């Protein structure tokens, strides 16, 4: 009995030792900063004057009356919806096309995936040149007899431009995930459906989509969370402008913290962002039971 319990203790010790690095790492680099952000959000912290004053929920109350935050949330909503819809639709379309047994698919796959491995800032800077009033895109449109807009100087086109730059940067990753899922759909099911007289669209809707639904869930979560954390593209392309049309929540948070030195308020915004991401992820996770095939 005693020997058994000693062995169990030893097993536990080995187990704890094994997980210790991950647990300690998570505590130090995830839980601790999270706790600190919450703590800071309850303070007014003036870095220059070197003051750190407890203000309770004041920073949270301030959010309700902050018109800049309302604008930022609106911009975030449009940006995220645009990015998620275009990215997922395009990734799925490309994956379906590349899933056909046609010559040259490897080249196209490489072509669409290569932006994923390119440095984000370098990619964005190149696009910022292309999107200038006299840049490459308008030069190309001009050759076709079309007068292009000043992409980054008009509120709507600026938001569209940032979405497009971000979509092309990351669509390759989602495309590969969808492609892997498509190639896992058993051919027999398609054959059986074909024998039953189902057309291509019917087979896609009733066989392919349900079977790749776990991947759609994964891609949706990654893309939505990613869309809420886009920063570098906006900093390089528009600086949040024109006006505040591309000042999304992360960029607004950055401005408050590092431009205006409002670290307390920025921490409260970081908590808000965390809660938004958490709620969206939980909603998606809960809704999976309705449409992800192995959960139904």
């Amino acid at each position, binding site marked *: 009995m005693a020997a058994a319990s000693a062995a169990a203790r030893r097993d536990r010790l080995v187990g704890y030792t094994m997980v210790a690095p991950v647990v300690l790492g998570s505590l130090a680099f995830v839980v601790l900063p999270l706790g600190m952000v919450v703590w800071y959000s309850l303070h007014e912290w003036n870095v220059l*004057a070197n003051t750190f004053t407890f203000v309770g929920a004041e920073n949270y109350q301030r959010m309700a009356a902050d018109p800049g935050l309302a604008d930022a949330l609106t911009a975030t909503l449009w940006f995220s919806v645009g990015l998620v819809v275009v990215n997922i639709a395009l990734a799925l379309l490309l994956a379906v096309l590349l899933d056909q047994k046609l010559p040259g698919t490897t080249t196209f796959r490489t072509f669409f995936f290569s932006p994923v491995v390119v440095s984000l800032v370098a990619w964005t800077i190149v696009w910022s040149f292309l999107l200038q009033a006299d840049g490459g895109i308008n030069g190309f449109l001009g050759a076709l007899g079309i007068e292009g807009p000043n992409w980054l100087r008009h509120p709507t086109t600026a938001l569209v431009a940032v979405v497009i730059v971000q979509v092309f940067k990351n669509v390759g990753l989602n495309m590969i995930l969808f492609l892997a899922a498509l190639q896992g759909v058993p051919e027999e099911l398609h054959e059986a459906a074909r024998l039953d007289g189902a057309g291509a669209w019917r087979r896609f809707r009733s066989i392919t989509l349900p079977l790749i639904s776990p991947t759609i869930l994964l891609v949706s979560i990654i893309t939505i969370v990613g869309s809420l954390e886009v920063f570098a593209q906006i900093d390089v392309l528009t600086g949040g402008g024109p006006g505040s049309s591309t000042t999304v929540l992360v960029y607004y948070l950055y401005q408050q913290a590092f431009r*205006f030195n409002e670290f307390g308020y920025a921490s409260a915004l970081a908590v808000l962002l965390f809660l938004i991401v958490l709620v969206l992820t939980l909603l998606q996770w809960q809704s999976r039971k309705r449409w992800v095939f192995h959960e139904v």
Partner: protein
Amino acid sequence: MSAHRTRGRRTAGTAAVLGTALALTACASGADAPVGEPDTPDEPVELRMTVWTADEAQLGLFRSIADAYVAENPELVSGVTFETIPFDDYTTALTTQLAGGNAPDLAWVFESNAPEFVSSGALVDLRPVLEDTEGYAFDDLVPSALTLWEEGDGLYAYPFSTSPFAVFVNTDQISAAGQPDPADLVADGGWTFDAARDIAAATAKDSGKQGLVVRDFDYQTWENLATVWSGWQAAPWSADGTQCTFTEPAMVDALTWFHDAVFDDGAMPGPGTTADFFAGDAAMTITQISRASALDGSFGWDVVPLPAGPAGPQNVVGQAGVGVFAAGEHPDVAADFLAYFTNAENAERLAAYFPPPRQSLLDGETLGDANPLLSAEQLEAVVVDGVQDAVTKPAHRNFAQLSETVRAELDALWVPDADVEAVLADTCAAVTPLLED
């Protein structure tokens, strides 16, 4: 395990997290330290100064001055490190260092941030050290150059660079377009913003390049337009910083002139168009005299003072200060080093890159020795005369928020059919609460 024990552990874990956060925060706090004659430390200290230049020649000069100081004061200082932070992110990176409890001993400070830094208590009063340092000749400093950095009797930074704005001219492009030479117009009193606009528009049309570029404005850094609206004696806010003056007639006229020069006359590049004068992309540029080092001799050039506006000629200077942080580890030693770094002898050496705020050094001949690219006449006309009664670019203790808010509002102005008065009224509506803060 009971729920009670679990909850107890959770509470302890939360307390540990928050306790650590509090401890780290406490570490980030510095203490206000009076600055004075430095006590000899137990062992020589290492000083750190943040700068935004990455120019090896400039850094080399700083190091040679620092080495001489270390050689003279081996018991005080073992070395001085000059840490370059990129220009665009300079203040952000600096305040992040402060937030992290890693304040540098000395730092360059932008003029636009001056009121915020000066009033915050982050910097120590340098006046006692500079006045008491033997041979410093404090009275030689031009009083108007110090104004921005003073509060009460205190002087919180030394304006190491007081660089006038001027107009660089590509004489090759202008003469090819058959336009009058701006230097001749200066001589006969005809050098006005309207004349500059007409020359720029005609030259741009002829060369297929750009006309007049307000350098570093880029439809973002709007405060650089002070080099234009000062000719109308316009300003974004009142001198005490409490009233928005964007809607004053002078500002409306100045920005209407600018808008029309861009969108009607084609005299200036529009938004989203980049043009580098020093690469030969434009006929003229308004920038600081210190940019002369970017000229490579690939085209004929001249430098002339800013044109006169309807309110007459107005000199504009860009300043940069260097201050000592109270939260730094060795404010006494840092202030002593600053007094050495900027004494009359070293100010003359620094004048090669940074026009000094010392009356005795402000003559064409002295500056000419340090600036071989520019003739004594050019320096006399642009630098020596340019710092007299000059205004600085806009500054405010709430500048960071004002800067971003004004930028966002003025975006509506940079379209062809903008209603200038309406945009400026919106701008005032947006910035007034920030001015009253």
